[in-house]
């Protein structure tokens, strides 16, 4: 896994594309990490730092939430924007049990405030993107942008790149969404879906103040309410969600 971080390529816009990733065919539930792109050669070190942080965050997710989750590198796969994840692409990922895909790029920019580095971390929450593809709300694929000074010390930068809480929330949301929509599980899906969705909501609300996270938290709660109403309407279900004390919203 460490090797992929070292194989950063300097990208240029013309050859950027979303290449197929052979790792999607590996068995089991999985997360894909695409190549971390440095737009300028001078940013290779920053890109490497970012790649390692993403890897760390995913290792923490595996350790604390789901050791069966596998993390696979997709070398040379370089999404440019969330729109690269078209319906057929996302459907293929969903069919192959991909929960999340993470990509990132760093670029030097200059605006009115002067030169700075732009760090973009892209997240694809596969089931959210797939099931909400037409509405686009909430976004299942999005970019969180950070800004760093050109010579910001790594000490200052590395903690900013720690998204472990956020990634745990996205993984829970992906899991809960798939469970809720998995009709093959029939009445057995409501409880685990509800658990993951309420967990996602809680984690998203404590993950930070990003607007996307707030939208995703609301979505998680909405789906959790659907798990509640689905359970209550399901003649085969006989669990807690059918009792009079169960309520639709996740309780804080």
């Amino acid at each position, binding site marked *: *896994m*460490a*090797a992929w971080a*070292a194989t950063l390529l300097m990208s240029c816009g013309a050859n950027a594309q979303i290449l197929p990733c052979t790792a999607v065919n590996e068995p089991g539930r999985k997360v894909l990490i695409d190549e971390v792109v440095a737009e300028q050669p001078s940013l290779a*070190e920053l890109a*490497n*730092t970012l790649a*390692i*942080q993403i*890897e*760390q*965050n995913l*290792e*923490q997710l595996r*350790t*604390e939430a789901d*050791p069966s989750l596998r993390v696979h590198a997709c070398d040379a796969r370089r999404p440019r924007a969330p729109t690269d994840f078209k319906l057929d692409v996302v459907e293929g990922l969903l069919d192959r049990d991909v929960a999340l895909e993470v990509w990132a790029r760093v670029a030097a920019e200059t605006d009115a405030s002067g030169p700075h580095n732009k760090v973009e971390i892209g997240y694809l929450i596969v089931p959210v993107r797939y099931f909400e593809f037409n509405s686009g709300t909430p976004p299942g694929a999005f970019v969180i942008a950070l800004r760093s000074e050109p010579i910001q010390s*790594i*000490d200052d930068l*590395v*903690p*900013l790149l*720690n*998204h*472990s*809480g956020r990634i*745990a929330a996205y993984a829970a949301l992906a899991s809960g969404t798939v469970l809720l929509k998995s009709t093959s599980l029939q009445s057995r899906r*409501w*409880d*685990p879906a*509800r*658990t993951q969705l*309420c*967990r996602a*909501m*809680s*984690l998203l609300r*404590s*993950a*930070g103040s990003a607007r996307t996270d707030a939208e995703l938290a609301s979505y998680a709660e909405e789906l*959790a309410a659907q798990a509640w109403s689905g*359970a209550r309407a399901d003649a085969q279900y*006989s*669990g*807690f*969600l*059918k*009792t*009079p*004390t*169960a*309520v639709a919203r*996740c*309780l*804080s």
Partner: protein
Amino acid sequence: MPKLIRVALWIAAVALLPCEQVFAIAVRSPCDRPFVFPGVDLNVVVLPYSQPSSLGATTPEVGTQLGQLVEFETLLAIAKFGSVGLIQTVGDPEDECTPEIVLGKLVGSEMLQPRHALIMIWGRIFESGSDLYLQTYLRFLRRDATENVEFVEGGRTLSGRLSSQSLALAPRKIALSELERIQQQYATANLLRATPNADAAFVRIPESGGPYSFGITDVRGDWVELAPMSATQNVLPRGWVLARAPTDGLSLRERMPELALVEGIAGYLSARVRNETRPLAAADAALSEYLERWRRGAFLAEQDTAASGMTLAVAIPEQLRGIMVLLRATGSSADSAAAHDHFKRAATLMPYSASARNLSAISGVSLALRERQPDRPPRQYLSDLLAAVNNDPGDREALDNLAELYDLVLTPPSGAPSRWSVPTADREALTQERDALRAVLRP
């Protein structure tokens, strides 16, 4: 002698050791054939820390060497708990030395006996720019046992369990010079000396082959006497190792507060395996030290524990301290209050966890029933548990507790505080809620 036969002989020798006060240590145990000491209560397995390939030229073995130093430091900390074994493994952290593979082999074999305990430690050294960082992970368990606690109130049992037994600990920055000191310290610790004296004649423990296994026959300060077992007797003599750095060396425990966490967990597990309270005071002191120091040198952006992603790294030690208070408890309300405080802090850190909220709620109930003047009416404890199962309706333990709590509220035990009584107007509604819950809990 073929390696497989050496391992088998060694395991056979360890199995014959007496079960009380067994201290054993193995270094350079190949990851592809992991083992634990079958006769001991608690085994600690340390996997090599993975390291970036860029360190290969200057410090090719630093991840493995750090693993051995962690093993020795842990040995000094936990030898007091008795019946412990430590195994340092070597191999590829990206391949056969992953925690999943090693744990699968250990738990899948008969070596780890039922109810005996295991702590697995692994980690990563990673590089950002010219800086290096260190992150440790750990997992602990007792085979076929749950880390739970029970409250018996009014003849009814309320039970709760730890929310996780697998943790990622805070990343820490380390300087390249510290890696060099790790290597120097390793070079010192890897020598078997004739006497516990830095000037005594020595034999170097080979940096190839293995496992090299020893019984621990004496501990004097930072010196540990090792007696080679079975196959190792043909390779190495009895001797003393300096398990901790001299005062001018790198203090691993100072740089890695998580080693205090390992000590605390080791004491907790030792107490539970043997069903005795003796190790708990030292274990609690170690956990307290960890909770006080875990942020020191940690490389985190946020002061807020949850936002920094370190929720479990703090919440689980809190829960362990709560359970340990109860294991040592004399039944006083002060003990109940102390345990409840720990569980409440953990639940506040992870409101999404039904198990954390469950522990907080049931310890609150227990406290309320011991105090004659509880500050919360019973309905609030019901609300706590209802919130937990509302968010996690599959948590059977919390559901069972909720049903028991309804019964405790509707039929308070003798001596329950006056505030525990339920107004008649509420009684009918609570009875209906209880009956509906009991209906869904029927098998």
